[in-house]
């Protein structure tokens, strides 16, 4: 320091004195890591041991950053309650669990679609109908008496149509700076109309079905209702859990060796074991014969479709530049813009991917219904999708959320839907309960967000 300070040494002079290796270190009050700050730091990035991790996780929950805990608890409570009250305690029977998965699959995929919009702090109200329009295109194209397209070509055409619709809406939202709420609300109406037009083609009086001997009809029908053999289910489990487990294990141990931030060994092992247990449980349940008469067993394809979408979008969101930019825009669009991110095209693409994923959900839905009719309610589907994403833990305010949240939230919505049906409750109760759960989820989201802002301000002192 060459400055000759003629004035009296201010309080800021003091830190100059220790010219040791780390003058800053001395400035920090060792007690200054308050519970508020600990609550904001994900425990897996600071914990060295399992004990520290559990302690950190507990602090975080108490601090309002509960992560996926509410949805997992919600699932358990829903399951226990319905198991107790459902007639003959049928809720957790193998047959009903598989049924529940299949009912939830549409919500899960649609919620993952909505995640793209929600991460940007936007919303897409149209994907219910856009997805069903895509499905209607596919269902029409494979009809043997009219176009008779091969099933794969019909699926590609339908997903492409959905992506184009999403890109068009995204362009209006980003280039003309129209609010996404309004553009996609208009889309909800428009594509309801388009759906009726598409369904009107051909000699099906608006009700093209997927039943019939044609292999193409059969392929679409099997998206939801097809299943693999029990043995293939176990093989698939070993392959999937093995690949993911090895990947996780090698990544974490490599990072630990290089001194990078990595979870404790115990946590890595716990994650792999949990994956194996959940996976085995799913396969075991699906392999129980669930037919009243005859034989019906094996893991449904729908589960693999959901897992495929989950894997692809998790990879995209967390391991690519594109995904990183979606989070950056959701967190601070101005920072992203100044960092040179082309915010407009990232957002447009996000709406296209949202609609494309909606198309996958639409195909599953058409398969679930065994065809399509003009009384499909895409407006209600999309509200369930938003509810599922938010219940799962994705924030409505942008920047926070994962694809897996959509899957868990979709399972909750599916469980409520399924349980209320088992109880024989009329549809009005299903609406009311689902709405109530959504309000609860949004409240958790908003309150935890407020909590973290207060925590951030407090940590700044």
């Amino acid at each position: 320091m060459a400055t000759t300070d003629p004035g009296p040494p201010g309080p800021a002079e003091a830190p100059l004195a220790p010219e040791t290796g780390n003058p800053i270190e001395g400035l920090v009050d060792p007690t200054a890591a308050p519970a508020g700050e600990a609550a904001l730091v994900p425990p897996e990035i600071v914990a060295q041991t399992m004990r520290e991790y559990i302690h950190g996780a507990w602090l975080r929950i108490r601090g309002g950053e509960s992560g996926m805990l509410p949805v997992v608890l919600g699932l358990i409570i829903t399951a226990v309650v319905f198991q107790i009250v459902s007639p003959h305690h049928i809720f957790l029977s193998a047959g009903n669990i598989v049924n529940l998965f299949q009912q939830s699959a549409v919500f899960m995929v649609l919620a993952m679609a909505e995640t793209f919009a929600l991460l940007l702090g936007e919303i897409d109200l149209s994907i219910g109908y856009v997805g069903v329009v895509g499905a209607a295109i596919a269902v029409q194209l494979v009809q043997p008496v009219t176009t008779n397209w091969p099933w794969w070509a019909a699926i590609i055409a339908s997903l492409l149509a959905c992506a184009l619709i999403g890109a068009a809406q995204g362009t209006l939202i980003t280039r003309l700076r129209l609010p996404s709420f309004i553009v996609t609300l208009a889309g909800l109406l428009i594509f309801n109309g388009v759906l009726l037009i598409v369904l009107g083609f051909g000699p099906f009086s608006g009700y093209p079905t997927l039943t019939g001997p044609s292999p193409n009809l059969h392929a679409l029908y099997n998206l939801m209702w097809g299943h693999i053999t029990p043995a293939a289910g176990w093989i698939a489990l070993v392959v999937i859990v093995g690949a993911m487990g090895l990947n996780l294990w090698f990544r974490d141990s490599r990072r630990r060796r290089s001194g990078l931030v990595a979870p404790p060994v115990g946590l890595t092992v716990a994650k792999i074991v949990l994956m194996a247990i959940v996976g085995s449980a799913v396969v075991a349940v699906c392999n129980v014969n669930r037919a009243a008469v005859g034989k019906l067993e094996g893991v449904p394809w729908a589960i693999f479709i959901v897992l495929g979408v989950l894997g692809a979008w998790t990879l995209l969101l967390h391991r690519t530049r594109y995904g990183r930019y979606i989070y950056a825009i959701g967190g601070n669009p101005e920072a992203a813009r100044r960092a040179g991110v082309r915010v407009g095209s990232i957002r447009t693409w996000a709406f296209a991917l949202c609609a494309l994923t909606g198309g996958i959900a639409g195909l599953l839905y058409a398969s679930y219904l065994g065809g399509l009719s003009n009384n499909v309610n895409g407006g209600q589907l999309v509200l369930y999708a938003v509810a599922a994403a938010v219940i799962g833990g994705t924030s409505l305010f942008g920047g926070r959320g994962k694809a897996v949240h959509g899957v868990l939230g979709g399972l909750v919505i599916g469980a409520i839907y399924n349980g209320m049906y088992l109880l024989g409750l009329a549809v009005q109760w299903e609406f009311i309960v689902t709405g109530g759960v959504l309000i609860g989820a949004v409240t958790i989201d908003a309150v935890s967000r407020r909590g973290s802002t207060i925590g951030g301000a407090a940590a700044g002192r």
Partner: protein
Amino acid sequence: MIEASVDEPLLTVRGLYKSFGAVQALSDVNLDVPAGQVTSLSGDNGAGKSVLIKCISGILEPDRGQLHWEGKPVRIRSAHDSAALGIETVYQDLALADNLDIVQNMFLGRERLRRRLLDEDSMERAAGETLAGLGVTTIRSIRQPVGSLSGGQRQSVAVAKAVMWNSKLVIMDEPTAALGVTQTAMVLNLVRRLRDHGLAVLMISHNLNDVFSVADRIAVMYLGTIVKDDSTSNFDRQSVVEYMTTGGLGVKTDGPSADAGAVEHGHD
């Protein structure tokens, strides 16, 4: 002190003018910013400090005048131009995404890839080295979200982000304005580290304590021009205040303050 300071300044500003309609925001600004030194830009609100740094960082284009970078005349017309020269600006709002972690923020827009996927290991290592080089050691984990950091830590991350890209001049707009005593000391230490690494620092600051504790040179702006630009040792608190409030015209302290308000340009 670094020897580079003796010869050619890293950046020289000569005869810079900028007006917004009838309002003359900058008139005949001359400033030298040497490498390896902290230059403090002081002045009352509306003196033109923000306009000047925006002209240097390419957000605004001056009407007239010359900028010389390492002795050569340059034109800086966009933030991209200034970044290409090695000028990085840390604005008051810091431009950090709270939901991303420190590594992700530091590499935002310039992520490293490996087989088309993000190379997190290499980015984390580089970010860790930069932070360690700057003596930022109070952060619990480099992977914690920026939203969980204190004000001083956020400032440190923003500065580290700025210096990662071989920058030669770091401009900081009121880096300590929102900080408490401890956090301020931490940021000022960081500023000293930048200087010790041979970087030029141009720091806008209102706080004379901060100015006298880190600045090697002080440039005082008054009504859109630099009235005094000299080594810190040639100032004392009294004289800086006098230059800031009167332009150094002696004891006349009341007169020009009415005009001073007219040059205000939404300085935040």
